[in-house]
């Protein structure tokens, strides 16, 4: 006689997913156990209800979206991996992987100095992502560690947009904060644009100064045709992109693609035109 309760197996039992022997044991137990029978009725009701769960129709224009995605310069489909075409390469590649792994282990085992020209925005992003909804814009506009208020012309020069700064990147948004941080022999700028109910912070630095984001995941994407990377920062839009030797990081609570795209395009095109000056 099977004495232990069988509640864990009741769904599988009702849906024919148990082995015949186990199903027999459950059936036998139910005959003699009122609490499991009660549970069984409840689960049968749940199954009956779940069987009404509807499927959905995808939007009619979805194929167009997919086609756009396919045409945004992504790799051709269906190409088999190189190794399947050239099986003779496999031992060579395996050896190379081993050699590189050993070299990497040796390299990382060496005592390291922190990069001289790196601006780590991880703490700043943490403050932005954890800010209460009502304080999100304030967090975006706040100064990360090491950034200090500066003359607007100085910040714009560091950001490489002095020649186009008279044109606002977004209608209605004004440049309200301009800060600089010295980074080794270089510098990085933070520009904050605001209007009622919205704020964008743009960090800009020129090679060799770079930005880092702790251990956050970074994913390649494209916006307004500009290749950039989306940095994992919950409830926040954080885009990192490069243009002509300038590294830019856009941070905002806004999820509006149009506005984000406008900001990215502004900085990307400004740096390209600067390169030609």
């Amino acid at each position, binding site marked *: 006689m099977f004495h232990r309760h069988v*509640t*864990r*197996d*009741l*769904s*599988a039992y*009702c*849906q024919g*997913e148990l082995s015949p022997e186990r199903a027999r044991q459950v059936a036998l137990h139910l005959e003699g156990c009122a609490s499991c029978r009660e*549970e069984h*009725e*409840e*689960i*049968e*009701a*749940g*199954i*009956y*209800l*779940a*069987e*009404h*769960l*509807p*499927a*959905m*129709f*995808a*939007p009619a224009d*979805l*194929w167009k*979206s*997919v086609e756009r*995605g*396919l045409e945004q310069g*992504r*790799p*051709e*489909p*269906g*190409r*088999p*991996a190189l190794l399947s075409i050239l099986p003779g390469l496999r031992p060579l590649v395996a050896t190379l992987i081993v050699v590189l792994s050993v070299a990497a282990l040796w390299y990382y085992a060496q005592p390291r100095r922190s990069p001289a020209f790196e601006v780590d925005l991880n703490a700043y992003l943490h403050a932005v992502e954890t800010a209460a909804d009502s304080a999100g814009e304030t967090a975006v506009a706040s100064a990360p560690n090491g950034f200090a208020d500066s003359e607007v012309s100085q910040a714009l020069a560091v950001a490489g947009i002095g020649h186009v700064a008279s044109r606002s990147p977004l209608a209605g948004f004004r440049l309200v904060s301009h800060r600089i941080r010295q980074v080794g022999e270089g510098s990085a700028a933070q520009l904050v644009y605001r209007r009622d109910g919205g704020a964008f912070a743009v960090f800009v630095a020129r090679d060799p100064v770079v930005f880092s984001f702790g251990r956050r*995941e970074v*994913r390649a994407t494209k916006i307004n045709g500009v290749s950039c990377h*989306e940095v*994992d920062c*919950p*409830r926040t839009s954080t885009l990192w992109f490069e243009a002509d030797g300038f590294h830019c990081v856009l941070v905002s609570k806004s*999820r509006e693609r149009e506005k984000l795209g406008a900001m990215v395009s502004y900085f990307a095109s400004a740096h390209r035109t600067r390169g030609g000056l």
Partner: protein
Amino acid sequence: MPRNVDARLIGQCQQGDREGFRALFEAYRDRVYTLAAYFSGDEATAKDVTQEVFVKLFQRIGDFRGNSLFDTWLYRLVMNTCMDERRRSRRFVPLQLLTGVNQMTRESHEQDRMRAEIAGLVQAAVKRLTPKLRLPVVLRYVEELSYEEIAAVLGCSQGTVASRLNRAHRILGRELRHLVAPGATGR
């Protein structure tokens, strides 16, 4: 279109045949969208995720070696894309689709208003489940996968699938018991 798509169609797609890919898209668009919608709870996100899934599918179909059902492989791609989107946005917006459930669901074609009403209430109750419980329910009842297939999609054991479905059934049974007429379960 049968649940496991014709191997020839997959072969065409692996050769980069856009017409073949369009046919594959038409076969799976609603199913992928349904999963994305139930996972994300947001129409706009579901559309974005579905688009991303098919773009990835087109890029990666060369990786499909036929050592699993194509459906399972595709569903895993959907799940992973949904998880990526979830990590990016870290939000679960209430299922706004429900406001238009009669337009959005296939049940809207049914003459049986009671069935459609139950469908809407069940959909609302399922959306309130945690993702861990919601996904097996959707895969079981919308995609009609077995416990074994659900386990393959979710990357867990069949026992875990059974346990999660058990909890989900119990929750639905308790919340919506009043909708079940005596004898309706037929078991």
